């Protein structure tokens, strides 16, 4: 069952998720080493591959606010983290859907680091506290992209349809 490995507060910006000084690095294979670079303990665990894929990063409100840098998404997608937050900033949410990052909007979530969360389609159960929270579905406008496996694949289909 997925465990909360790292918890952050509200308004966590992309400058915190992926500091600007590493922006010259763009390849999704290289960005994960700089995820939360200034949160030394968490970053060290990520780099040492001590975080099991499918672990949960718990955000507050407005997760991913700030710049449009896509590295802030790819650096979390690499280690296959699931991001659970009360809500997301617009560009981050869009980038996450486009790149296939697993994100869950859970407006009332309460959990601590170390808690185990059970995820289903419309609800999340905190197994440690025994409490259940509602999950908000992704905007319907985005579901086609999620279903296609990301924006690149979706665009490829659309492009080929346009040519035919």
């Amino acid at each position, binding site marked *: 069952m997925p465990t909360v490995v790292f918890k952050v507060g509200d*308004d966590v*910006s992309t*400058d*915190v998720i992926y*500091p*600007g*000084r590493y*922006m*010259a*690095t*763009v*390849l999704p294979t290289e960005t994960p080493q700089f995820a939360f670079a*200034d949160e030394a303990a968490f970053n060290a665990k990520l780099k040492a591959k001590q975080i099991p894929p499918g672990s949960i990063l718990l955000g507050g*409100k*407005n997760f991913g*606010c*700030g*710049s*449009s*840098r*896509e590295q802030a*998404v790819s650096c979390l997608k690499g280690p296959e983290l699931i991001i659970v937050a009360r*809500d997301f*900033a*617009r*560009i981050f949410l*869009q*980038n996450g859907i*486009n*790149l296939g990052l697993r994100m869950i909007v859970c407006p009332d979530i309460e959990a601590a680091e170390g808690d185990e969360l059970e995820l289903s389609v419309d609800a999340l159960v905190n197994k440690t506290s025994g409490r259940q929270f509602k999950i908000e579905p992704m*905007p*319907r*406008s*985005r579901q*086609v*992209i999620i279903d296609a496996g*990301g*924006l*690149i694949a*979706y*665009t*490829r289909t*659309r*492009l*080929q349809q*346009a*040519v035919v």
Partner: protein
Amino acid sequence: MTIVEKILARASGLPSVKAGDVVEPKVDLAMSHENAALVINQFLEIYQGTPLPPKIWDPSRVAVIFDHRVPAESSKTASNQKKVRDFVGVQGVGKFHDIRGDVGGICHQILPENGYVRPGYVVVGTDSHTTSHGALGAFAFGIGATEMATVWALGSVLNVEVPTTIKVVVKGRFKKFVGPKDLILHLIGKISAQGANFKVLEFHGETISKMSTSGRLVLCNMSVEAGATAGIVPADEETARYLREEAGVTGPIEPVLPDADAAYESVIEINVSKLQPQIACPHTVDNVKPIDQVAGKRVNQIVIGSCTNGRLDDLAIAAKILKGQKVAQGTRMLIFPASAKIFRQALGKGYVGVFMQAGAVVMNSGCGPCLGIHEGALGDGEAALSTTNRNFKGRMGNPNSEVYLCSPAVAAASAITGVITNPRKK
């Protein structure tokens, strides 16, 4: 319909749209900066496994501007820039601004000053402050690199949900040394960094009608700091004046205005007559205080510039305050004009000489210290006072430092004293 609803209806080929509808608007202008390097990767990937050659849908509608790390600070950046330069050459991208003293500058200044943005346009950019271009009556918003790759391929943005709009009505006259930056900081402080999430801020009122395009750019630039998808000012005579006189536009200008019965999700009224200079304190842009609550705070670095406040009127006010004065010992002052054109105008007006004689360092046009990547980083425990738009932890290159945000007048007055200083009380 609101302005944005009208623009999206036109761009999507529909008679009307309303908030919540999902549309696929055609793009009039698509802008990227150095992160075009990542867009190129994603763009080429779209074509993989297809028999189609990778070809930008309309290279004349694509703008690429080098500004974030100019001149390159590392071989890695230089190689990325080279890759982009080669690509735009091959694809024939029409609006490419390289690192140059004639046509270079920050993307959000280059677009307006070259007349690339017109009222009614759909503008997308791989930069969150693309909201700036709403100052000219366009619907302009930030997207990620992968989304931009789709735009390059198809010429439209897929699956845009029509946003709701908050109407902001501004009345009153600014006091001396108070202006658009103080207004937008005040608004963000009032509605919070999430207050306009997924919404548009549409600016109205006598204060906005009288405001220059430069000031409107400040408002729309920072709308994203309240979470807004876009900021927008209805195009008017000032917009036409700016486009004709300052941006050299000769073709038709067709303003898109909101209907009298447009549906707004809410209305916010602000009177600026009593507004004092505002400061956004570390580490969130909505941590806004009237200057008197933070006056006296020691600052190590003063920054004037960026896409927010690096235009000629910003430099003019700073030069007025700094003329014959000295930057305080122990404080350093960095000034970076938003574009090479503005830099040359500031030279012509004598501002650059004033700044240098006062002890400031005038840097080449570009993003510079604003994002702390390659110059003007802060030391541990240091504080900066800056006319830029973000003060997130680590923004100026060091997580163990602080950034305070302010207007150019406050920055200049504080440079002389070395502490946060109210220019109205000097």
